[in-house]
């Protein structure tokens, strides 16, 4: 075995070369609406420059005007006072009539960037990463009140989940507490940007209709998380490392402890599974409801949600009844189960709250026909397969095959639109994109998570491809 050491004899010489920065590209990196919907974004340009060695100037962080930093609280546009300064107007001096500036933005920063592209010819391409291009229904759920003192939809969802906890101490995992802090930050913030990024806001309509979508090339990076997207989002919100999972791991560990304590009690094991499978069953119930209504034509979201709401009420009551039946024997178990049910309910109510604004995708899925491939169940299954006596060998083969490769059936499934915990897929899209890159299994905060040391996620691949020119020179940034 040999170990060779590469010689970097030119490193010093390079620093002394005049014009070494000739190939640098001017960029601006805009993050989103405070840490409430965007955080960690400043680490991304640092990683792309210092770790991946791309050669660019970030005109925001290097702005010599000092106090004139990017101020997103100025918003996209003030319709009451059109002449008042906006974040985009404030940014224009930073561009200083440069040319071929690449803009990269997350969340609300993308809306500012789009307005900037409308106003200033310096920008020549944009990378829009997790941007509410069509507005955010989740933000609307968290900010919109029908009358001034009414509760927001998000607050009602929270109250529903809190009622399941019934004053139990669930602070050990505290998903509801973190959610409450988050939606309060969204709804009570003096920063108007949350109203501006809500769907149907004047600013969103203005950007999409008048003027039309951007004239310069742009790429969309959009994130999605399967199933418990809200819990994934809260995990990333509460932690410095957006890939860590303190809340979901805490809840999973509590349930696992309960399972171990009752590993021989089938009744309680069944109850534990029922609680932890609430979200999954909610998805199935939703699919069945959509399927039933779909047979009679296209159902309205209101009709589906009303029927789904009835299912939730009935299911929740039945589970709580079963939990309370165990309380006398084990108070701690009842507490853990109530806490977990509240998490599951919160995540599913949030998910299905978004449906009102999203789409439902229809697909097929292979599902097992038997709960488990036991010999008894397989014999029963094979008896049902043959009308007469098929012969011992044929019957035996059927049973063996069934146990070896359990039978499945193809079913139609109805799935709510993919989302990153905050934004639906359709809300992140914008017609005319040069490239659309799916950051799968990225929640809204993980879309900003790039550090040179971490191999988590695919944001680094997406940016490396674009910077290397795989989507053309509009997005290219040279190496140092």
């Amino acid at each position, binding site marked *: 075995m040999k*170990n060779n050491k590469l010689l970097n004899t030119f490193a010093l010489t*390079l620093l002394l070369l005049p014009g070494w920065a000739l190939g640098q590209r001017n960029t601006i990196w805009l993050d989103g609406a405070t840490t409430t919907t965007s955080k960690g974004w400043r680490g991304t340009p640092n990683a792309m420059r210092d770790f991946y060695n791309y050669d660019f100037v970030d005109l925001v962080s290097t702005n010599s005007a000092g106090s004139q930093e990017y101020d997103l609280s100025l918003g996209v546009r003030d319709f009451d006072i059109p002449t008042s300064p906006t974040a985009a107007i404030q940014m224009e001096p930073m561009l200083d009539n440069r040319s071929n500036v690449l803009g990269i933005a997350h969340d609300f920063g993308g809306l500012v960037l789009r307005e900037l592209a409308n106003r200033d010819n310096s920008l020549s391409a944009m990378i829009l990463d997790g941007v509410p291009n069509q507005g955010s229904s989740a933000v609307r759920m968290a900010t919109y009140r029908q009358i001034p003192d009414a509760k927001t939809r998000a607050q009602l969802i929270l109250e529903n989940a809190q009622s399941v906890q019934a004053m139990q101490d669930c602070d050990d995992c505290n998903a509801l507490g973190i959610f409450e802090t988050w939606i309060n930050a969204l709804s009570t913030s003096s920063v108007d940007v949350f109203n501006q990024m809500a769907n149907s806001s004047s600013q969103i309509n203005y950007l999409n209709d008048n003027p039309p979508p951007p004239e310069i090339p742009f790429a969309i990076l959009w994130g999605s998380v399967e199933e418990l997207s809200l819990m994934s989002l809260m995990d990333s919100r509460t932690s410095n490392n957006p890939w860590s999972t303190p809340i979901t791991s805490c809840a999973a560990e509590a349930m696992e402890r309960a399972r171990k304590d009752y590993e021989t009690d089938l009744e309680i094991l069944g109850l534990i599974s029922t609680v932890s499978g609430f979200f999954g069953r909610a998805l199935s119930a939703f699919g069945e409801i959509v399927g039933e209504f779909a047979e009679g034509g296209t159902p309205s979201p209101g009709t589906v949600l009303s029927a789904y709401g009835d299912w939730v009420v009935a299911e929740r009551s039945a589970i709580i009844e079963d939990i309370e039946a165990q309380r006398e024997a084990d108070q701690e178990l009842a507490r853990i189960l109530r806490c977990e049910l509240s998490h599951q309910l919160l995540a599913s109510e949030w998910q299905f709250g978004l449906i009102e604004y999203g789409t439902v995708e229809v697909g097929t899925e292979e599902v097992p026909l038997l709960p488990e491939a036991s010999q008894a169940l397989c014999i029963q299954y094979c008896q049902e397969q043959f009308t007469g006596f098929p012969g011992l060998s044929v019957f035996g083969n059927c049973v063996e095959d069934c146990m070896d490769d359990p039978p499945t059936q193809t079913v139609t499934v109805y799935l709510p639109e993919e989302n990153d915990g905050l934004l639906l897929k359709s809300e992140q899209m914008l017609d005319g994109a040069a490239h659309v*890159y799916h950051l799968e*299994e990225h929640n809204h905060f993980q879309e900003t998570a790039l550090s*040179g040391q971490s191999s988590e996620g695919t944001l680094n*691949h997406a940016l490396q491809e674009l910077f290397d020119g795989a989507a053309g020179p509009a997005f290219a940034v040279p190496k140092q």
Partner: protein
Amino acid sequence: MRYLIVVWGLLISLSGCSSVLQESWVVPCSGHFEFYPLNWEQLLILSSSCDSEPCIKAIDLRSGEEAWSLSDTLFKQVYYNFQPYLDERYLVLPVGRELICLSPKTGEILWQSRRSRSGDSHVFGDGQFVYRSYVATSDSAFEWIRFDLDSGRDSLLLMSPVSKASRCLMRSPVPFFDGRDSGLVSPVIDYEPRGLTESYLLLWKQEQSAAAVRHTIYPDNEQGRGPSLPPVVAGKHSWWVASQDVVSFDLANEKIVWRVTLPHGLLTSRLTLHGDNLFLACEDEKLYAIAASTGKLQWSSPIAGTPGRVFHAPEATYLIGGSDQVLYEIDRHKGQVLDRYAFQGTGRKLRRVAYFGHGVAVLNDGRNWQAVPLTALPTQLRRLQVPENNRK
């Protein structure tokens, strides 16, 4: 059932003949950088870590033993989807401003070149020279630089003017022999922000003249589009991906043979040719097979978005869905997804960079490279259902 087991055992022993792997092996990845592993004879050259420093290692595919390693912090700069040059004697790595030539047998550095400007991340060669494009110092032209593989001596082959090189993309020239002439061909996109972008192939033939000829293969547009990915070149035939278009270009007669437009283009994957078909894993979550001679669509197969490169082993075609991080095994003739695999257990996901060949899959979970015989995929990985319509 008994017969099945016998047949399965026979299959394993037969296919074992095509696998060089004696036993499964594991080599640590680098947390700092990655690239698609390169195969040289029985060695696999891959990204790894040596005493916490990024390094390149050559691993014996059969045993997992390390043949050599080369460490330097410079490797952090490697673009994960770069295109090095590799032949019987030389491995040439394009890394930013550096071009590093190694012996693939020993890892010895044969020569190293550093220029004042960054070069293209793809290099191509012909056994005697390796070619790379650079922005000229004037910023108004691109240069084709030729490096002698034996000595590393460089020479300027061609300087091609563009409006502003920092707004343009010129990939490294690909050498070809069209049956009569040998030459070089590069794709160029001359991007004009808020104006019309012009793109073309820059074609130069050794026997004809000193001047390079421009051939437009994609219409001028306002979106900065054009041929931006490395092509496939075989004799006089060449195939290019320009945004959503796939273009077949005859290098001998210098004309477009056919053009097809797909619903989406490529970003993370690359065009491949195997047998009579071209393969494209596109961003619309489909793998397309297109007849190389006519452009006729043979089949399309559902895969997950942002897929990795496509590998063709005798057994099947393989790729990793970059977004769902699942390994797809596809029947190359029918386009049917035969199987989908993930790592056993939870928390380990397949990274897009991988290697398939010599009867072995070398997979990456971000922590380790793991070699698995292709025949053992069903037992060593978790087999997933193959949905008929996977949420498309």
